[in-house]
């Protein structure tokens, strides 16, 4: 029986803890300086907006941890001594471990902007950020958000529910276009504006100005415009939260360097989730994967390894999801923001401008490579299968009905999509698989 200590109670650390408990009788301790219990970080925005209370964001009731013999410690880890195998906690305590799993997540990026540490300037990553946002919201009459990613748009949505007008500065020429192709990027930009956000594309922030009390009072843009505001959201990405490892002997670059087993250079020390950086990134994947889903997978993988079943981190077909105000987004496989060599695309957009599908396939043999879809729900299982089986684009389109996951009675668009494909590809006339009759639907 080993002493397993996990630093970080986010999705990665908690998944690891749960699976270690399933697989073994090890002593498990989870340390967090953020909250007493695991909560869903992805739900921070909903607490602010009043959709949920903090209590509602906890995926397990508080008795769960004791019942499963997972010890929770509320402390900050000041340093790790990897030769002695000890941790020094902010409470003055020292803990001894046999196996250490680092799941410390991220911190919001600050790129050295003048004024970035003023009051009312913050990112949105952890529970304390939420509390800070609550604190500064009541006397914020205007807010500026810097950085065009997922957290930026969430922050805009949050602030609007408090009737705080938002100016959104995005360095790129279209929203999130380092990830999304131009078509989707434009669709989302339009939707952001529909919600009365003052979206400024191709605009950088030069500095944040302070009032006499050290609180942000305005933002100066790249071209010198001053925008009065009392709150500045910094949402230009996140980076691994690893400062406490400086003298630990654990190798770090931007993140904690890990091999395919999620093991660091120090024996019995692993890193998972946002804070881990792969020495050899997997094909088509980033060296640091800052995604809920991959964190969860890595937690399960490391649990297997720790429990004696050495397991390589091998994620399957890439998938992800998000929601931009009212428009849901799902993606399966790879759709890059620019077509790569030997890639072809088919893009369909609904006249409402709120639904679209973007298919990418191999231009040589028509193998389907990936899809971005907005405003329509698709079945993960079906796309996972098609991608694994290397189906071609024709098969995917012909069977698109099978993948629809929208609620009953929702408008169906498969026929329009097929028609658009046939129009764009002269000489092609693919036909949609017949819909089941009502009778067959009810009784099959």
């Amino acid at each position, binding site marked *: 029986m080993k002493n397993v200590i996990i630093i970080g109670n986010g999705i990665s650390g908690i998944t690891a803890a749960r699976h270690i408990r399933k697989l073994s009788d090890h002593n498990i301790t989870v340390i967090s300086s953020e909250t007493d219990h695991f909560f869903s970080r992805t739900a921070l925005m909903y607490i602010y907006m009043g959709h949920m209370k903090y209590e509602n964001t906890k995926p397990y009731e508080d008795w769960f941890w004791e019942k499963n013999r997972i010890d929770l410690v509320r402390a900050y880890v000041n340093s790790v001594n990897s030769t002695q195998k000890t941790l020094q906690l902010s409470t003055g305590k020292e803990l001894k471990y046999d196996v250490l799993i680092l799941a410390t997540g991220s911190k919001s990026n600050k790129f050295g902007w003048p004024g970035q540490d003023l009051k009312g300037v913050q990112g949105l990553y952890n529970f304390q950020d939420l509390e800070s946002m609550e604190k500064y919201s009541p006397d914020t009459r205007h807010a500026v958000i810097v950085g065009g990613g997922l957290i930026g748009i969430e922050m805009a949505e949050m602030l609007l529910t408090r009737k705080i007008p938002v100016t959104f500065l995005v360095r790129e020429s279209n929203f999130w276009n380092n990830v999304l192709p131009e078509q989707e990027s434009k669709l989302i930009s339009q939707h952001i504006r529909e*919600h009365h956000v003052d979206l400024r594309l191709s605009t950088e922030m030069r500095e944040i100005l302070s009032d006499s009390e050290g609180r942000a009072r305005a933002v100066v843009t790249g071209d010198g415009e001053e925008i009065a505001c009392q709150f500045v959201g910094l949402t230009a990405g996140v980076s691994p939260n690893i400062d406490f490892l400086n003298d630990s002997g654990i190798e770090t670059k931007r993140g904690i360097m890990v091999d395919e087993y999620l093991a660091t250079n120090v024996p019995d020390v692993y890193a998972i989730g946002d804070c881990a950086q792969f020495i050899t990134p997997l094909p088509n994947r980033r060296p640091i994967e800052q995604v809920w*889903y991959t964190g969860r997978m890595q937690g399960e993988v490391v649990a*297997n390894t720790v429990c004696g079943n050495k397991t*390589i981190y091998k*994620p399957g077909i890439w998938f992800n999801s998000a929601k931009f105000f009212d428009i849901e987004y*799902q993606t399966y496989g790879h759709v890059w923001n620019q077509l790569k060599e030997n890639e072809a695309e088919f893009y369909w957009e609904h006249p409402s401008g709120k639904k679209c599908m973007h298919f990418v396939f191999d231009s040589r043999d028509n193998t389907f490579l990936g899809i971005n879809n907005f405003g329509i729900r*698709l079945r993960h299982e079906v796309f996972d299968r098609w991608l694994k089986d290397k189906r071609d684009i024709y098969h995917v389109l012909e069977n698109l009905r099978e993948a629809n996951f929208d609620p009953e009675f929702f408008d169906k668009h498969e026929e329009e999509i097929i028609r658009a494909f046939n129009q764009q590809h002269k000489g092609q006339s693919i036909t949609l698989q017949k819909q089941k009759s009502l009778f067959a639907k*009810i009784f099959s």
Partner: protein
Amino acid sequence: MTKIIQSIGLVLFVLGLGFFISLPFLDSFKLTDEVLKSTLGNEQHYELLSEATKPMLDKTYTSSFSFSSDFITSFNHVNDALKAEEKWDQVIWDNPNDLTMRLAIASNQSFAKENKFLTFLLTFVVAIIGSLMYILPKVNDGPAGIRNNHIFHRALSNRGWLGIVLGTFLISFYILLYFTPQHITSWIFITDPISQALSGNTASQWFLYGLLYTIAVAVMGIRMIMKYRHSKYQIIRTLSVIFFQTAFAFILPEILVRLNQPYYDFKNMWPLDYDFFDAWHVDTLTSSGGIGIFMFAWGITLFVVGVPVFVYLFGKRWYCSWVCGCGGLAETLGDPYRQLSSKKLSSWKIERYLIHGVLVFSVIMTGGVLYTYFTGAGQVFGLETSNVRSTYGLMIGSIFSGVIGTGFYPLMGNRVWCRFGCPLAAYLGIVQRFKSRFRITTNGGQCISCGNCSTYCEMGIDVRWYAQRGQNIVRSSCVGCGVCSAVCPRGVLNLENSSEEGRLNEPLLIGNDSITLQK
């Protein structure tokens, strides 16, 4: 502009409701000999009571409480004397509260009594117009989508002072309605014009209740449709509950009465409809010719054949969130409180004991009633069947389903009755759990454990617990309202009827080949 219309609407609603609430306080009563005679309609009772109530005659009462207290004192005085003399055949067996109510209606002298329709306009109609002026402009609130903003910041929807006030009001309303309707007579008779137009009769407290219920379902149904206007499932489902409440539960039975047929709600069903097998009900139906026989056969077919077949095909939602009146009220009037249902594992345990306990109780109660009906014997195993029946009616029929079921909306969520008490829901649920094509499918590995689904599940199902491990949700209590699917930000949940194969699946989160490939 939108704001102005909404503010006017809110003012009108408060005025209409305020006037409605103040009506009983504006009552005055004057009992005359003539009123007593015509209301009692029974020469013997009149003779017995006219002596005892003499001090009440021509006296003006300004409160229903003193009027009621004086009359019931006289009533009991007469009855006690008869009982003491063991003159059982002369004892007045009428429910004293009902009798008082009828007398109070007849002797009411208020403005409302003289101006029933005007008062109806100033209360009901003004409040309805006000509500619609508040609800309909929401279409201008911006793009359609999930807007649960500030639900947990508001006193009404987060058990704050407004929620407690509303809960108290609803609980008081049910107590008055079920047990002491003599205090709300002006509420009852101002609906006379509507009742007379439908059935030709003056209104009873049950007509008032049916009318209020239908208005609540319709008006708050429109609110539901506005809120979920991006979801066709929610729109169609809400139109369905409005239709079944208005047409089947409210208008059709009244029209049947006008046509001298038995009062019958074709969508109500035993064991929710717990008096279906009462002797008087069976006799009424079976003595009303072909249509009565049809109603009796229909009522039995519904729960014997309808439930298993439809639950197999569509899940219990076909009834609970598309047809049922209790469900209809919960899905419309109760929608703002769905997030207050407890998701604790301990609540689920209590739920299973309670709801199946009520189902067993209802079966025993009905069995006893039928035993007595067929054999004439009043007792089975030493139990007085009529006592079991009246206990059920009081404890389950009135207190649980009404006072607690609806009164606790703003405190425990909108499905307290459906979740903890409804015997029909228990029966539908057993079929749904073990033999049905219905499930809520989870979409591969897309769940982010945010908790919106569990929070907004009115039945208190911890939907997230299943979704985050990639397991279909197959639960006896799920009424299929579809709100978990609507509030999911990642498209993870979908209500589906499909082949039974794979319905009760092993948990599987798609996407992690490290683990699944090794097995």
